[in-house]
């Protein structure tokens, strides 16, 4: 399961790491993800989810993706329901507490069609961090004694050689590709993130390559005026796509809050009939639209602007 250290290094050195432009279209970025690859998804629950990128992967008919995320919401439904993902590692999977339990997750996991490996949230974080640090594992003190640990033979208990304390060693997670949405980055991939970072910085540095979607592309001069705000360095990034409202119907901090009415509609549709409802949703909202802008049109300008107004005014307290 853990990859060889030298292989992981070789994959980095095989890529052009110069300061060069890498702006592509959503479709071109989707083509960079191959069937069967492991995909780390940025953001958490309803926040800064790279929805546009996932939408494009599903339209690109990807198969056998092995996905991971700290906390998984409706983007996980999409990945399972479309047949793009057969294996997911996460700490929590449902659309959101206010909508109950995802019937899509239940359908695919209970029938054995999809494997859902449960780790604690901190374990997911420590696994990406180990990956980012270039070490094969990190020790931690939770999950011990629980059935969550018993379900995960990949994690090992050990007695600390210094203190004798019982510790859990969790293996590094180095996805082939990380999908991360940010508020702004330059054409080279220097990325700035506002608000909550979740596990994204460790995920970016653990992954072999990063595909960034961004609310807007700014100049390299603007990045250089505030380099302390850069959270992901250009050389980790393989491609940059400008996608305004690229997290809809989820939230992007400072840009838009979740589109709650659409989420209510979506969850009632798929939780009533997880297969038929999802097929209907995918046809209408994922395969149907001509472009991401066309998808946003389907969500409705009124709804989007209302979510944007709330998203921008949140810190007006």
């Amino acid at each position, binding site marked *: 399961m853990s990859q060889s250290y030298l292989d992981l290094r070789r994959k980095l050195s095989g890529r052009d790491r110069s300061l060069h432009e890498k702006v592509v279209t959503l479709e071109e970025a989707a083509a960079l993800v191959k069937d069967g690859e492991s995909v780390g998804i940025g953001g*958490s*629950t*309803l*926040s800064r989810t790279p929805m546009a990128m996932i939408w494009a992967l599903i339209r690109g008919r990807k198969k056998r993706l092995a996905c991971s995320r*700290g*906390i998984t919401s409706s983007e996980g439904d999409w990945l399972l329901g479309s047949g793009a993902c057969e294996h997911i590692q*996460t*700490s*929590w*999977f*449902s659309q*959101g*507490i*206010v909508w109950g*339990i*995802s019937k899509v*997750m*239940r359908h695919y*996991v*209970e029938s054995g069609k999809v494997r*859902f490996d*449960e780790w*604690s*949230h*901190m*374990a997911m*974080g420590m696994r990406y*961090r180990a990956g980012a640090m270039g070490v094969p594992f990190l020790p*931690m*003190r*939770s*999950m*011990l*004694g*629980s*059935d*969550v640990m018993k*379900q995960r033979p990949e994690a090992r*208990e050990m007695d600390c050689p210094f203190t004798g*304390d*019982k*510790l*859990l060693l969790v293996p590094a997670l180095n996805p082939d590709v990380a999908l991360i949405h940010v508020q702004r980055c330059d054409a080279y991939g220097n990325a700035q993130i506002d*608000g*909550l*970072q*979740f*596990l*994204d*910085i*460790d995920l970016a540095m653990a992954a072999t390559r990063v595909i960034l979607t961004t609310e807007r592309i700014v100049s390299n001069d603007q990045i250089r005026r505030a380099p302390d705000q850069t959270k992901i360095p250009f050389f980790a990034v393989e491609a940059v796509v400008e996608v305004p409202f690229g997290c809809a119907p989820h*939230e992007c*901090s*400072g840009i838009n*809050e*979740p589109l709650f009415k659409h989420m209510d509609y979506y969850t009632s549709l798929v939780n009533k009939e997880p297969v038929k409802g999802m097929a209907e949703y995918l046809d209408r909202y994922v395969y149907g639209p001509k472009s991401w802008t066309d998808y946003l049109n389907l969500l409705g300008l009124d709804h989007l602007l209302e979510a944007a107004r709330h*998203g921008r005014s*949140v*810190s007006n*307290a």
Partner: protein
Amino acid sequence: MPSAADYTASELLAVMSSRLLKDGQIVFAGVGIPLLAATLAQGLHCPGLTILFEGGVIGPVIEPGKLPPSTNEQRCTIRANMVLSSTDVLLLLQRGYVDVGFMGGAQIDQHGNLNSSFIGDPAHPKTRLPGTGGGNDIASLAHMIVAMKHEKRRFVESVDFVTSPGYLSGNTTRRDSGLPAGGMYRVVTDLGIFGFDGKTRRMNVVALHAGVTRDQVQDSTGFELVFNPNIETTQHPTAAELGFLRKLDPHRLYTA
């Protein structure tokens, strides 16, 4: 003074658990009742209480009517002292900065273990539940308050699956498993307040809410409760407490 007819079970849970918090504490709060209760405590009797959220937030101010749908949205960061990565906020639990972990529960057993992963055999589950999130980390590393509805199907002898550890099989099994710190402190329900025996680690009755009988609480529990010698009766929620809660959650998102 309001009577039982004047508030919902969720409001009762929020008020009773908020009274257990003390000024100056650092509280790692889940969404829903825990978030409301911690904010209520902060507003009424613990001005120096600090809330942490799993998304990566230290010391935010929750605005009335702008409750976050989970602890991972920008509404959680309003007027916060610091935002940091989710891993780093969870590591504050491991380092020992957190006085109280505070969350809701779906199923609990006599030793305070919580299940939010599976109903039935995990290999062939009847129901796959959403999973632990940060619940396992919080319950493994901090003293816990759990707020939940008191029903026989939720209070079982042993949970189908230990997602978030209480005292595991009781006695010293929690410590022996590598969890020397923290543990279940109180379970707050719509019937009463429960603690755990210092030695056997079995659940016992600390207090009952006004009008609740011993038979009623035992009948609603799937295992034999230990009744402490001096069981107190809690005071009804006050008008001030209910007023604060209703201002905080005017749409009854969490207190329906």
